[in-house]
């Protein structure tokens, strides 16, 4: 089985936010929530850099570790998913997540939050693959259809890569050796305790 990961080639990201839009549209993510976002560092200054970020589907995921009701599970492809039927909306996964991935439909309301929502690596949830219930709760299940996450598939500069760790790491390494520079796989050290030497 594959070990699915995201890799954002920060030297290529042009902050077009198409990944953000594609994700929202594909999964019909409600207003006010973003499973993916683009963060720009040193905005407007020399050496500006943008990185597209969502759930990194960590190895030994912190969200799963701190969840008081154990609603997270990891698929055979190492994608970190959760059950909205079990989630109690306590917000602890957001406190533990190094990437700010978990999202909640309600703000305030004495901390009631509602069921957590996050990037599923386009792999749906515990319901039957491609079912109506699955789509309503978790969005499209592209992985079950043999497709990769839409954000990376339609990235205009191919900055965002999604797929098996070995394959995308190889693509990135070749890219770096051809162009002669690379700022590394952002977030990998934090998420997987390993990085790609550049």
């Amino acid at each position, binding site marked *: 089985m594959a070990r699915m990961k995201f890799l954002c080639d920060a030297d290529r990201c042009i902050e077009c936010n198409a990944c953000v839009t594609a994700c929202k549209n594909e999964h019909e993510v409600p207003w006010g929530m973003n499973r993916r976002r683009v963060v720009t560092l040193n*905005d407007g200054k020399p*050496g500006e850099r943008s990185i597209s970020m969502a759930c990194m589907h960590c190895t030994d995921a*912190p969200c799963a570790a*701190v969840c008081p009701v154990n609603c997270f599970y990891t698929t055979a492809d190492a994608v970190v998913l959760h059950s909205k039927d079990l989630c109690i*909306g306590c*917000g602890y996964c957001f406190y*533990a997540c190094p*990437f*700010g991935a978990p999202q909640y439909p309600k703000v305030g309301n004495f901390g009631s939050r509602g069921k957590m929502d996050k990037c599923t690596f386009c792999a749906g949830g515990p319901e039957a693959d491609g079912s109506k219930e699955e789509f309503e709760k978790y969005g499209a299940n592209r992985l079950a259809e043999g497709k990769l996450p839409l954000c990376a598939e339609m990235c205009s500069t191919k900055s965002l890569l999604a797929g098996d760790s070995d394959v995308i790491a190889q693509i990135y390494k070749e890219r770096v050796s051809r162009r002669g520079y690379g700022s*590394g796989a952002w977030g990998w050290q934090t998420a997987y305790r390993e990085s790609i030497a550049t």
Partner: protein
Amino acid sequence: MAKFFAHMRLIAGVLALALIVAMPAPVWAQQPSSVNPTAEAVKEQQLLQQLNTIQGRGTIPDVKSYVLEHPAGREWREFHNVTLKWIGGVAIIGMLLILIVFYLWRGPMRVKSGYSGISVLRFDMLERFVHWLTATTFVVLGITGLNITFGRALLLPWMGPEAFSTWSEWGKYTHNYLSFAFTIGVVLMFLMWLGRNLPTAADVEWLKLGGGMFDRDNSTHAPAHKFNAGQKILFWLIVLASAAMIISGFMLLFPFYSGLTVGNMQLAEIFHGVVGVLFVALILGHIYLGTVGMEGAFGAMSDGNVDLNWAKEHHNLWVKDEIQTSGTKREAMRPAE
């Protein structure tokens, strides 16, 4: 005429050629291919080492999403999953063990001179109402709070995921909303009993005698007003712990309100968790002394009455100053049925 045009074409051609040759070569032709156009841009490891967080700017209204990376969640996870469980386990199980050992060694504190049959009103209706408002909400808050930390390990395996989630979700709502009732209870209790919990000379004597708690003959009677020094310490610990719980609790109840960052939220949870488990351990000791630990004490908070001999032995100054010398308070003394 045609010849003139041919000359002109030749001159123009030569000029154009000269211009191209004289022009500087394009930039790409001169530089090696390995120049890094983002060389001066920030590096991930460098930012994490310097700040332990990477913060930028985004284009969506959710300001907290502008934090790109925040590995401190890892320390919080370690605290929540390991440290807090140890602190809580040691504090609560340790307190229970101490109480059991103390009970086996000491037994309940007896009324040495026996019951007189005369009841004295110790806590009036308002005092009992405020006490039980605080106490019942505390017990529910304590159980639902401990469930968040210990439920997954202790309850989930035998309740099953669905039942445990339903119970935990209702527990969360109960915890969130009862916090307001608890806050009111604590504030009223603080105002009501503040004057009686200021230190007096008798407290020093009481503490020197250990409150008579360690005298198995029950013959040591340390001086005390309405509240003895131990009860005063308990009162102040409850006030301080409640203040800590209320402040950190309201931060958790209104997450990210008015610029609270994820780091602030983690700190609030750490504070709430540590003070919470210690608070539970403290109240276990209080419950013990108010029930099985001391004969004749529970009546003070059930119907409000205690036996006169109990009052004389445990709160002699209170009996002397407020019960026997006060004409109006004398009405409060009546024989038990």
